[in-house]
Structure formats: C-alpha cells, structure tokens
C-alpha cells in the first residue's frame, strides 16, 4: 500500500469523472423513461431468484425521488456505488488541483481487499434472495 500525490496528469480523468457525475444528475428526469425500456431480469422472471443486480434500476429511481434509505434497501451496493461515483466526480478535480494524495493498493492488501469485495457481493446476493427483491 502506498500513497502518491496527484498531478496534472490525473486532471483529464478527474474531469471525465466530473462530466459523468454531472451527466448522471442532468439525466435524472429521464430515469423513469429509461427504466421502462429496460427488460426485466430474466433470472428473476424464470426462477423467482433475484440476480446480484436486481433492484438497481428501482434504487436509482428511489434516489431520484430522494428516498435514499429506500434505495439502500433495494440494492445496497449499487446505491453506495452510485453515490460514491457522483460525490467522487465532484471532488476529484479539486483533489487533483490541490495535489492531494491518493492511495495505491498493491500486494497482500489488494488481495485482502479483493476477498472483501467478493464477500460483499456474496452478502448482497444472499440479502436480495432473503428479502425477495
């Protein structure tokens, strides 16, 4: 695990991140329309078992309505990921401008983090199956 200072080279990525966050917020009124076009989850339709991503679009709609807790209950990882993505997009350019440090995870720490990520995915799937989203 090591830290490195951000530099001007990181700015294009930070700006792209900002653009993504701005676009996500700007497109919020279109989310209900987009949700109508999305096909239903085939696994859930066929077997009654929700897939790992089930509830993501409903979580996005709940977030667009301002129902944060409802979104978290529908699909915790997707909700947290979207919020982190949007907040990160607005923070990133300033972070780079200040040459603030960022973390580079390598070696055994990265391996442990990967295990944690897989466990989080498995836990979310079990949760979605248990609550029958």
């Amino acid at each position, binding site marked *: 695990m090591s830290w490195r200072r951000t530099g001007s080279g990181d700015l294009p990525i930070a700006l792209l991140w900002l653009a993504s966050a701005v676009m996500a917020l700007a497109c919020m009124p279109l989310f209900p329309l987009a949700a109508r*076009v999305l096909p239903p*989850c085939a696994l859930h*339709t066929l077997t009654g078992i929700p897939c790992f991503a089930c509830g993501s679009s409903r979580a996005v709609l709940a977030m667009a309505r301002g129902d944060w807790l409802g979104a978290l209950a529908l699909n915790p990882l997707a909700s947290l990921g979207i919020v982190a993505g949007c907040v990160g997009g607005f923070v990133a350019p300033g972070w780079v401008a200040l040459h603030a440090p960022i973390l580079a995870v390598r070696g055994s720490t990265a391996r442990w983090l990967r295990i944690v990520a897989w466990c989080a995915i498995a836990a979310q799937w079990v949760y979605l199956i248990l609550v029958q989203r």
Partner: protein
Amino acid sequence: MEERPPDPNDPYRPHDLPPPTAPLPPEPPPPAPPPTEWAPSFGGPPPPPPSGLDPIPWEQRGLGFFAGFYETLRLLATSPRKAYERVAVTQAIGRPLGFALLVGWPGILAATLWDIALQSQLDEWMPWMRTQNIERSPILEIIFALAAPLWFPVLLFLVAALQHLFLWMVGGARNSFVQTLRVLCYAQISALAGLVPMCGSLLAAIGHLVLQLIGLSAVHRIGMGRALLALLLPLLLCCGCIAILFSMFGAAWLASMKGGG
C-alpha cells in the same frame, strides 16, 4: 574459521568464479537514473512502450494525422495484438479519446440511421425485439447520435471504470485504470462495423469483445482467460440470467425439433 583463497585445481571449485590469472571484470556502469515520469498531456508525445517497440502510430510524433490514423486502423484490424503491445503506458487519454470519437461517431450515426431505415423490416422479422413500452422518435434518435461527442467519452469512462473494477476483482489489473480506458478507446474501431446494414451492430459487438480481450491481455500482461473472465463477469453476475435464458431457449428449440422430427 579462517577463509582460504580458492584453489584453481580444486575439482569442486564453482564455475562462476573467474580463473585466478584472469583480470578482474570491469565494474558495471552505475545504474541509469529512473526515467522521469512523462508529464501527461493532450498533445505531448508518449514514451515508448515498455516492450521497446514504437508507440502505436496514432500516438507517434512526426507521423501525419491521416498517416497515423490509417496506420492505426490497419494495425488494429490486421494484427491487434501487435497494436496493443505498442500502446504506451501513460496517463495521456486525449489522443485515444480522439481516436475513439473519430471511429465511434460515424459508426453510431450509421447504426442509428440503418436502425431507423430498417425498423419496419426488423419488427417484421424479429417481433420479440420490438420495444412496446416506449414510442420511438427517429428525430430524437438522430439528435442523440449527432450528440455522441458529448456523451460518448463519458460512456467510455463509465464502461472502463466498471471493466477495471472487474479486472481488479479477478486480479488482472496490473496497470492503471487509464490503460483500461486506452484499450477501450482503441477497441472502438469495431464501431465502424455499424456501417454494415442489418448485422452491423452485432458485428461491432463481437469485434469489440475480441479487441478488448486482446487489448486487456496485452496491456495488463495477463492471460486471455483472465481477461475473458473480467469481461464476462459483469454479464455472469448481473445478467447471469442471460445464460440461463439462452440455455432454456436452446432446450426448448431442441425439444421442438425432437417433437417435430
């Protein structure tokens, strides 16, 4: 215990020791200082790729715009592995994004226009593909395609972020996120298949998958299997249902064949 000098007639004498009469080898030159990190920018030249090859023509200084563009197209189409091995490991994304727009935009436009022009035929041949939940507006679709330079880089960024996340989850992210984004940018050459009517989008999707597979494997220096796993993992996790759906359709088709035959 006192250490003795090595005996030249000793049969167990290590081979790597120089003969006693030979002159001492000259001292190796001091190691070169680490190369200073290339200041990434939209216009600057990238450093040579780690393999010692020239950078991909599109990023080569001195090569003209059209020559660089044509050579990159040719290299990606004929030997994509070589092309991706020449993709320099830098933070610069301006040129790859420019390339992605140059090849992606016409492809998106063409695919949209073909889709609108052949909509009635497609609905007739593939009624299950018809979107019943929403009224389609050709004008809006064309405007959306024309505005691709605005949303396409953002889409590439988001897809690359997801792809890099899954690559990291399978232990394949040996290089930074920017390299994943650069692979994705150069894989947009497959969007040109959108110029082909009817099956253009399908060809583009297949080409995109193949190019990404080769690109991720070459740039992150991982096996094709791991790259494939990283690419398919989102499908397996989020749409694992698709595999089940296809197998059920296959089973139903086989059953109907059996019943009919």
